């Protein structure tokens, strides 16, 4: 008899069940009673239809698009840090965070934008908090993008360094993408034929990757050089026209990336039925403090470590940017916004399970970012036995890189556009230039990526991302207050997220500050912990390590200050909206009914 309780099977079933309750129970209730979505109300897709930005799209298409846009490296690597406190708290946060906050934010952001004529968060922030609020958001987003870029560049470099076969495979996919772009747009070949050729080239790339492992000969300098190569590829992706490079590459990358997710979920469900059954090896926890003494307390660290999969601010930007302009009917917002987010929770769950089946030794020092690949190989080997471990390792390693590279290409482009918006005129107009802004948007993150330890970057990324989520929920709450709808279901999550993330930023900044303080008192162990080789434990670079810690103090402090000022503006706006709501309202044309 197989002991199902010792395998991850039960947790997959429980999570799917609870997500079902979140969607059909809580979700439908919020949709009916708070937002009162109405299938007969014209959406911006119909009101402003232009066939380019505004046009109605079926809910299935939009769900696929939304899921693809939100699912990236967040739900895959977040649980790697989250599992520090035991897998049980991580699982509870993936379930509970998504149940009460995650889907609510994605869906709410979409509904807010739909009710505001398809406008995105910039103009909505302007309406609720004024010009300064919007400038504040712009500054926050710029910092946020730099931190995301640093994290992803650091990870791409680490993956290339860890999995020797993945570099050739990545280059193969990039070339296949370039070729497919030419075949599609210049030769005008049929899309199915191009897909066939592209997929054959992807398989060939993985095969060549296994045959030709690449190891750089520079020792401790390998990571900085890998990161530099990643930055060059990203520069091309940001500057070249999208149909030439980014579009076809992302299209081809979609196939292996989603095949991997499906394989891991099948593997997790099959764990009790394979011989021998795959059991959970990591401790359940909960540990209130990081047992390795690096990360700190479970609150607030766990809640920023697992970002996407539980809740993520990036999603609110996606929901309100393009999806809301293409929503056919209002009632589609729940399956598209909420449904895509709950599905992403399953991706986080699959990743958590890939970590749960590994031995605790994989997590010592938290530098083994390759653990996901090893877990994925453990889960899939029983039914993909025909493929050898090197092939599976290269495949899953490549998938990680693809997730990082494709999202980062979009982030770098977005940074370039935001920089153009910020500095297109005035004294610093040179930073609005396409090439200079891209170099800045990759150069600063590169410097962070090659100096700071990846988990430190990840926690800043999580902090900024979750804070953005908290701010998005506050925007949603302000709107609900203004239209006299119940606000507590979004206000409580909003306050929780803002307080938690600001606390996490304070903790992180404090850690870096303390590290500098400890160095001044002749204890260099703290500053060394926060940096990576070659700077780590090298007496020649000790001052560089101190400098990096100091820079991280400044980054954390700025993120905190900008985030806090934004939060204060939003709370003020909420308070005045509530005051107006309580005051006797003049009779409205509709008899003072709530917005329907």
């Amino acid at each position, binding site marked *: 008899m197989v002991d199902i309780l010792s395998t991850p099977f039960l947790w997959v079933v429980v999570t799917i069940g609870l997500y079902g309750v979140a969607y059909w129970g809580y979700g439908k209730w919020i949709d009916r009673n708070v937002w009162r979505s109405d299938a007969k109300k014209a959406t911006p897709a119909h009101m*402003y239809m*232009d*066939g*380019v*930005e505004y046009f109605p*799209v*079926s*809910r*299935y*298409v*939009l*769900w*696929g*698009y*939304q*899921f*693809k*846009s939100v699912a990236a490296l967040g739900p895959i690597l977040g649980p790697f840090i989250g599992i520090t406190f035991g897998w049980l708290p991580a699982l509870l946060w993936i379930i509970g965070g998504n149940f009460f906050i995650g889907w609510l934010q994605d869906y709410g952001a979409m509904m807010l934008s739909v009710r505001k004529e398809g*406008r*995105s*968060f*910039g*103009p909505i922030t302007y309406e609720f908090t004024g010009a300064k609020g919007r400038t504040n*958001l*712009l500054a926050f*987003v710029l910092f946020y993008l730099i931190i995301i870029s640093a994290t992803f560049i650091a990870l791409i470099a680490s993956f290339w360094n860890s999995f020797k076969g993945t570099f050739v495979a990545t280059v193969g996919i990039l070339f296949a993408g370039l070729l497919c772009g030419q075949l599609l747009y210049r030769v005008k070949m049929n899309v199915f034929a191009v897909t066939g050729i592209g997929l054959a080239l992807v398989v060939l790339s993985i095969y060549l990757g296994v045959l030709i492992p690449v190891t750089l000969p520079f020792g401790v300098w390998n990571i900085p050089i890998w990161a530099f190569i990643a930055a060059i590829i990203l520069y091309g992706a940001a500057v070249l*026209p*999208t*149909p030439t490079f980014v*579009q076809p590459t*992302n*299209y081809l990358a*979609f*196939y292996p990336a*989603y095949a991997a997710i499906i394989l891991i979920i099948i593997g997790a469900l099959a764990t009790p039925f394979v011989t021998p059954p795959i059991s959970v090896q990591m401790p359940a926890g909960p540990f209130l403090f990081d047992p390795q003494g690096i990360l700190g307390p479970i609150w607030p660290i766990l809640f920023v470590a697992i970002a996407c999969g539980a809740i993520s601010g990036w999603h609110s*930007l*996606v929901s*309100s*940017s*393009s999806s809301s302009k*293409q929503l056919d009917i209002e009632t589609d917002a729940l399956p598209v916004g909420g449904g895509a987010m709950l599905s992403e929770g399953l991706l986080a769950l699959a990743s958590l399970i890939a970590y749960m089946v590994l031995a605790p030794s994989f997590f010592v020092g938290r530098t083994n970012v390759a653990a996901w690949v090893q877990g994925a190989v453990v889960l899939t080997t029983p039914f993909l036995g025909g493929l050898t471990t090197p092939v599976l390792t290269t495949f899953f390693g490549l998938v990680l890189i693809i997730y990082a590279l494709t999202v980062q290409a*979009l982030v770098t482009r*977005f940074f370039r*556009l*935001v920089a153009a*918006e*910020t500095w297109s005129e005035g004294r610093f107009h040179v930073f609005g230039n396409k090439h200079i802004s891209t170099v800045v948007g990759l150069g600063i993150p590169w410097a962070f990526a090659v100096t700071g330890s990846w988990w430190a970057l990840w926690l800043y990324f999580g902090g900024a991302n979750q804070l953005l989520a908290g701010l998005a929920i506050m925007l949603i709450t302000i709107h609900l207050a203004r239209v006299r709808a119940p606000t507590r279901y979004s206000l409580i999550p909003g306050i929780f997220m803002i307080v938690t993330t600001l606390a996490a930023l304070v903790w992180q900044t404090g850690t870096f500050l303390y590290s500098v303080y400890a160095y001044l008192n002749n204890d260099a162990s703290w500053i060394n912990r926060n940096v990576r080789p070659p700077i780590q434990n090298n007496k020649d670079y000790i001052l560089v390590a101190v400098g990096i810690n100091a820079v991280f103090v400044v980054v954390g402090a700025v993120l905190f200050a900008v985030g806090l000022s934004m939060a204060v503006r939003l709370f003020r706006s909420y308070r005045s909206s509530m005051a107006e709501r309580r005051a006797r309202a003049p009779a409205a044309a509709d008899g003072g009914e709530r917005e329907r």
Partner: protein
Amino acid sequence: MTESNDAPKRKGRGGKMKDAAKGVFYGMAAHGHVTAALRTRMYLEHLFMFITLGDMLGVPVIPPYYSLRILPYAVPNIKSWKQRVFRERDFTDQVF
């Protein structure tokens, strides 16, 4: 030419599932690229309209003689052109 008055055939559960699966697949794999291509075309069309009809806005790019000759072809697009050019666009609209 006669048009059929028959109501469109109702799809069974299998047909709906097939449509849903096709929709999801298209949405994941290609929808973002299709909208990106449409947006690129939109910007090129803006440029075309600006170059050809710019003299009417006070920006004489080509002599009015040619603008007048192109006018009949450009007229049907003027409404949507105006709508798109006047639309408020913020940095947060450019995420995807």
